[in-house]
Every structure is written in structure tokens, then in C-alpha cells.
């Protein structure tokens, strides 16, 4: 048997690092953005990172029910969709009342 020209491998750790990077970017976006919709985008990025991680575990980890990771991912997507709908509705509702979506200026609960 000849040695193959190229023998690349993909390990669980690789995928988890990619997921972590995605999560960190999402965290940064969520914490730093001024616009409420920008914050929401960060949250969505973090949820995606979580999904990547879940699916990686489902694919690589020894388990009785390996598909559970995928089931969880679908639940995450479902909840994320619900969350996006409500959050965007909130953004629009806040805009209606305060005429801004900048989270700096949304300070109703400050005192």
C-alpha cells in the first residue's frame, strides 16, 4: 500500500476551536454594538457557535444516543427563531416609543 499524497485529518478539537472563535466574535458583537439589532446579530452568532459545538460532539464523542446533539441543535435553532422574532418585535416596539434603537439611549430602567 502506497502512502497517500495528502493525509489530512480533522479532530474534535479543531471544530471546537472554530466554534469557540465564532462564539467569541458573537460575544464581542453582542457586547459592543450600539444598535439593538446589532446586539441581536451577536446573539445569533453565539447560538450558531453553540450549534457547531453541539454537532461536533454529536459527530465525534462516544455515546449511546449520538443523535442527541443534533436534536439539541434543532431545538436551539427553533428557540433562536422565536427569540429573533420577539427581539426584533421588541426593537421595533422600542423604536416606536423612543424613536431610537440605540441601546445607549434606551435607559428606561436606569432609575
Amino acid at each position, binding site marked *: 500500500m502506497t502512502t497517500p499524497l495528502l493525509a*489530512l485529518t*480533522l*479532530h*474534535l*478539537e*479543531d*471544530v*471546537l*476551536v*472554530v466554534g*469557540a*472563535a*465564532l*462564539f*467569541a*466574535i*458573537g*460575544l*464581542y*458583537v453582542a*457586547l*459592543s*454594538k*450600539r*444598535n439593538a*439589532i*446589532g446586539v*441581536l*446579530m451577536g446573539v*445569533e452568532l453565539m447560538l*450558531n457557535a453553540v*450549534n*457547531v459545538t453541539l*454537532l461536533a460532539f454529536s*459527530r*465525534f*464523542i*462516544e*455515546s449511546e444516543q449520538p*443523535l*442527541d446533539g*443534533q*436534536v439539541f441543535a*434543532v*431545538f436551539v*435553532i*427553533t428557540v*433562536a*427563531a*422565536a427569540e*429573533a422574532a*420577539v427581539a*426584533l*418585535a421588541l*426593537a*421595533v*416596539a422600542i423604536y*416606536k416609543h423612543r*424613536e431610537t*434603537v440605540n441601546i445607549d439611549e434606551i435607559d428606561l430602567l436606569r432609575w
Partner: protein
Amino acid sequence: MIADNGIVIAFWLLAATTIGCALMVAAVRELVQAVLFLALTFVGAAGMYIVLSADFVAVVQVLIYAGAVSVLMTFAVMLTPAADRRNSETVFQVPALILAGLVLAIVVFVTLDTDWAISDRGAFSATAASLGEAFLKPYVVPFEVASVLLMVAMIGAIVLTQEDEVPPRRQEGE
């Protein structure tokens, strides 16, 4: 461990796309462009899901995230005035950057430090049918709760965005 050259190359290409687009979400100045890059991030993530042999989740991701959530976000962005469509940062930019870096460092450290129980199961074949089984047998309660949640979210969104006073509109024929 996946030891298939094509799949590994595909994964790294997709990972680069995804993370690059995610960085663009953080970097671009226009909120609408950020949403479009976000959609591209979602598509890239869907590609990674396929590499991780989760075809159902990947397709659902494209359908719901790239197709619906990003469209919804565009809608919300376009509803806000043009002056607010900048993708600017608050004063917390530097702390956020530090915090995100810390989180990344910790997670990477933990990931590399842990001894994972790796299986050599290989890729799943088609997952849609077995996922369906899982939803309707062991996970039927969460499944129903999720559907109730979606319903509640829908009603909540309608209530939140409802116009308080309905402007007089001409008879539209309904």
C-alpha cells in the same frame, strides 16, 4: 477523527468563510451589510454542519437562519430610520474585546486540555428519519414545548408591534 482529504479541506474552507464573515459582521460600518454578512455566516455554518454529517440541521439552518431570520433582521433594520443604520460601537468596545478574547482563550485552553472520549463511529448516514423518531419518541415533550414557545413568540411579536390606533384605511376588499 475525519480522515478524508476532501472533507477536511472543505471544512477548513468553510470555517475560514464563516469566521471571516463573522468578523465582517463586527467590522462593517453599515448595518444592512452586516446583516448580509451574517446571512453568509449562517450559510458557511450550514456547510460545517454538513461536514459534521448533520444534513438535516444544515438544511434547516439555511432555511430558517439564512432564509428567515436574516430576512427578518433586514426588515427590522429597514424599519428603523436611516440615521440609525450605522453599525457603530458603544464605549464598551475595548472591554468587550478583552472579554471575548478571554473567553476564547479559556475555551481553547479547556478544549485542548480535555481528554475527549472519541468514538470511531464514522459519519451518520441519513439523519432526517432518525431525527424524526427522536423528536416524536424520547423528546416529544420538549418538542411540544418548543412548538408552544413558537406560538407564544408569534403572538408576542404581533402584540408588541401592533399599532395602538388603527389608522383609517380605505376598504381594501376584505
